[in-house]
């Protein structure tokens, strides 16, 4: 297995086969809490930017926000360090910083093996198995665990009999076992165990098909206007070496009309060119009739002829029949789906990778994002209808994902700006802000004089014009040595590093680690030299200027020993990179690759970001009560909510209540 594959498949797929025992455990914790007569409502809008709110409100497209701002508090909300969603929402959940919850970046590494892993959750296949030929029979259940540590404020609420609904909060997979109605958010994988892998069937595969990330291109050949191909499912732990389970699809195309039929396992769907299907259940056989894994997909028939192009969404966990625990109580996800319709369960459902790889055009991407939004609004209506007491949290990913992808269409300074783009593409970001205005109007219907109401975002946004590869910089400046310099172009995920001559390395989107003796397996930096080396590196990085623009790339490089406090602080990267607006870490740097150039123009359509210096991407805070704090931050929300219910925040919460 390549190291990149290790990241793609975190083992969650394997656990699908054997994790059936986890859900019932949650059931034991479910129950009813006493009524309170007091409400706290949080509308969480990932990535909502204060400046964009002001701009779009001024244009008149957000009347509900405009009215709300007139009579209530609206201010920037301090984000996390670094301002990445898993870190930020962990700050929100725990009321504390990464030193307490232990989430420092999207990607962490195991200091013993130096293998990278996704930081939010980890899945492990069954530890005890018996082999019968090629069949592997698990004797124990697989395990899927939430890696976030520290307190969770709705656990405190539940312990004190405060009813709570928490829909799709990020960094909560698998959901905390708690006596509350919760559905997991960012971190929830697709059935393959990835953050979302689409399948693209075509007889005209693009040249870079082998390099797709977040998707798989399957070349096909039509014979008598039909073809068969496999849809990939979870790793099949019932088989030796856990090969991926497959489901056979057969696709028929009409001889002249732009219509096609997809069939699988007795089910079928007919689509016209340009149409999306609804959700369809897919069942992967793992051990004959004895074990299977159920998921659901949407089909999109992009083109019928001259070339055939069929997009199949990542295989989502079906909320009606979840293969992994995604809610508490375990039936809650299904309860919502039965009334509101099935919905994307994967963490970030907007298929940004399909747009990045040109599998989607811009209008096609926006159509998919609209489906996600429609589903989420239906869930909002359903969960709000069910709520009349206690705590309520509802999360939207639309603004975040669509600003990442569509900022470039509204920013004439962006290198990917197209003056001739259609108005609906240029106005896409504003469109989704307007949609949040509608969500606010629906939510306000539940807000009364006994309700404390917040609208929050975890961070704002900045354009992403140019990218910076910190690992190339470290290599060029002698902080990293390669074991085989001739393999430089093939190096990824720390697999070609000469640890005996390496002082520091970058991993993830903002993190730089020292190769510390006693922590890294072949560490050479003595602990007593670490502070001086970190300071030297920080100063040199802060002084670095982009050779093409002459601008500073990093506004500030944070030394973690000055920023993080708590039991997990020792695991933190030594340096956290605070990029200037317009810059962000290059994708290949996050994957520890070493291209020749340190800085270059951003060419991917993911062309706006927030993983920069935190003060430059603060989120939003709206509240219907006076806010006393001068500089409120995300981690202050948990203690504030607890205080609203008259509860004392746990000792580990370092945030402070913000209301007057």
């Amino acid at each position, binding site marked *: 297995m390549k190291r990149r594959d290790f990241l793609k498949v975190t083992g969650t797929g394997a656990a699908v086969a054997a994790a059936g025992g986890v859900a019932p455990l949650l059931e034991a914790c479910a129950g009813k809490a006493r009524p309170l007569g007091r409400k706290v409502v949080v509308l969480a809008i990932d990535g909502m930017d204060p400046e964009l709110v002001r701009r779009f409100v001024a244009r008149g497209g957000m009347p509900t926000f405009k009215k709300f701002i007139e009579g209530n508090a609206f201010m920037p909300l301090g984000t996390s360090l670094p301002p990445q969603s898993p870190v930020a929402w962990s700050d929100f959940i725990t009321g504390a910083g990464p030193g307490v919850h232990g989430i420092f970046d999207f990607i962490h590494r195991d200091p013993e093996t130096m293998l990278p892993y996704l930081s939010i959750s980890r899945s492990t296949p069954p530890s005890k198995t018996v082999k019968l030929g090629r069949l592997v029979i698990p004797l124990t259940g697989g395990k899927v665990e939430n890696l976030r540590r520290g307190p969770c404020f709705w656990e405190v609420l539940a312990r004190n009999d405060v009813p709570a609904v928490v829909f799709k909060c990020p960094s909560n997979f698998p959901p905390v076992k708690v006596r509350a109605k919760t559905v997991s958010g960012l971190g929830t994988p697709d059935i393959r165990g990835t953050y979302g892998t689409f399948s693209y069937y075509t007889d005209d595969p693009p040249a870079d098909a082998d390099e797709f990330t977040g998707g798989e291109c399957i070349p096909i050949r039509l014979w008598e206007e039909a073809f068969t191909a496999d849809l990939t499912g979870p790793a099949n732990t019932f088989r030796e070496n856990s090969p991926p389970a497959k489901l056979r699809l057969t696709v028929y195309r009409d001889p002249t009309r732009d*219509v096609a*039929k997809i069939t699988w396992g007795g089910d079928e769907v*007919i689509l016209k060119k340009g149409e999306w299907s609804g959700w369809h259940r897919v069942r992967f056989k793992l051990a004959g009739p004895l074990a299977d894994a159920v998921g659901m997909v949407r089909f999109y028939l992009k083109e019928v002829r001259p070339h055939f192009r069929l997009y199949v969404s990542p295989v989502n966990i079906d909320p009606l029949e979840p293969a992994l625990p995604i809610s508490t109580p375990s039936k809650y996800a299904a309860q919502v789906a039965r009334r509101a319709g099935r919905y994307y369960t994967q963490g970030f459902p907007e298929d940004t990778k399909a747009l990045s790889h040109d599998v989607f055009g811009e209008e096609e991407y926006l159509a998919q994002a609209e489906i996600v939004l429609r589903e989420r609004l239906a869930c909002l209506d359903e969960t709000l209808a069910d709520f009349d007491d206690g705590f309520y949290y509802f999360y939207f990913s639309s603004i975040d994902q669509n600003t990442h992808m569509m900022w470039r269409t509204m920013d004439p300074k962006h290198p990917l700006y197209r003056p001739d783009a259609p108005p609906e593409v240029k106005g896409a970001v504003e469109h989704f802000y307007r949609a949040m205005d509608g969500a606010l109007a629906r939510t306000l219907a539940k807000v009364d004089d006994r309700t404390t109401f917040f609208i929050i975002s975890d961070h704002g946004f900045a354009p992403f014009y140019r990218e910076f590869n910190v690992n190339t910089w470290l290599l060029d400046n002698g902080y990293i040595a390669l074991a085989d310099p001739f393999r430089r172009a093939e190096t990824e995920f720390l697999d070609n590093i000469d640890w005996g001559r390496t002082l520091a390395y970058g991993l993830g989107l903002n993190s730089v680690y020292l190769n510390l003796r006693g922590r890294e397996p072949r560490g050479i930096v003595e602990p007593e030299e670490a502070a001086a080396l970190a300071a030297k590196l920080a100063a040199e990085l802060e002084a670095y200027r982009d050779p093409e623009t002459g601008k500073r790339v990093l506004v500030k490089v944070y030394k973690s020993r000055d920023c993080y406090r708590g039991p997990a602080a020792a695991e933190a990267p030594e340096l956290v990179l605070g990029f200037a607006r317009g810059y962000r870490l290059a994708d290949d740097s996050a994957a520890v690759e070493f291209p020749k150039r340190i800085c270059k123009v951003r060419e991917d359509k993911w062309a706006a970001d927030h993983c920069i210096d935190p003060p430059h991407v603060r989120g939003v805070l709206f509240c219907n009560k006076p806010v006393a704090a001068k500089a409120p931050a995300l981690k202050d929300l948990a203690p504030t909510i607890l205080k609203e219910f008259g509860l004392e925040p746990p000792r580990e919460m370092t945030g402070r209540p913000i209301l007057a």
Partner: protein
Amino acid sequence: MWYFNLAFTRLFDALVWPFRVWPAGGLLFVSVVAGVAMLLIFKVTSNQRAIRRTRDLIRAHMLAMRLFRDDAAVVVESQKKVLRTNLTYLRYAVVPIVFILPVVVLIMVQLNLRYGPAPARPGEAVVVKAVFEGALDEGATLAASPEVAVETPALRIPYEREADWRVRPLEAGTFELVLKSRGKDWGKKLVVGPPAVGRVSSRRVSGVWAQLMNPGERPLSSNLKAIEVKYPSRENKILGLRVHWIITFFVVSLVAAFALKGVFRTEV
């Protein structure tokens, strides 16, 4: 065949009528009745005395194996005899099974009509499929009442002699789809409603055997082999658990047959 199907379907309607508000109860009741019917057919069509004698012989040889387990020759000989007598027993069972099988098939066909497919749901698309006897009619079209939207042109698969459409019912009810082909019209019922609604016939077919297996609607004349609606599967719950109706039927009918064999003095 149509009148036979009609009569048998009406008989079943009457059987499950008391359970119209508890469909699972109807399945359990029919399974018990089927178990009793199988038992009675077995009793009437089998050689009860020979079966009793064969079973006694098997018991005797088993006993011999236990009593003379120190004597390898006796044990091996008894094992051989158990095997041979078992084959004899199977021979006696063949005749009643031949009589039971058609009855079971007919019962299962009727059960499938009620517990197999679920009605289409308002707003959810289903596929309608026409399979032609001879060459595919490339100009075949599908029409429906205003409550049902035909959303796609025909998808034609010439080598399968098949044309497919996607239709979306807009409200609950029973609607008529009309397939227009070569100057003729063929109707097919589309049942739309809540999952608990009674009979749902997936296929309207031609041919005697196909009609026996698909008794829900009048047979088709030549040129057309079948018109089929791909309904979703029905979710049958027994004691809160989702169980396929075939499993429920076999388990309950067998348990009923074995439990009642003393009552009906039947050697099985």
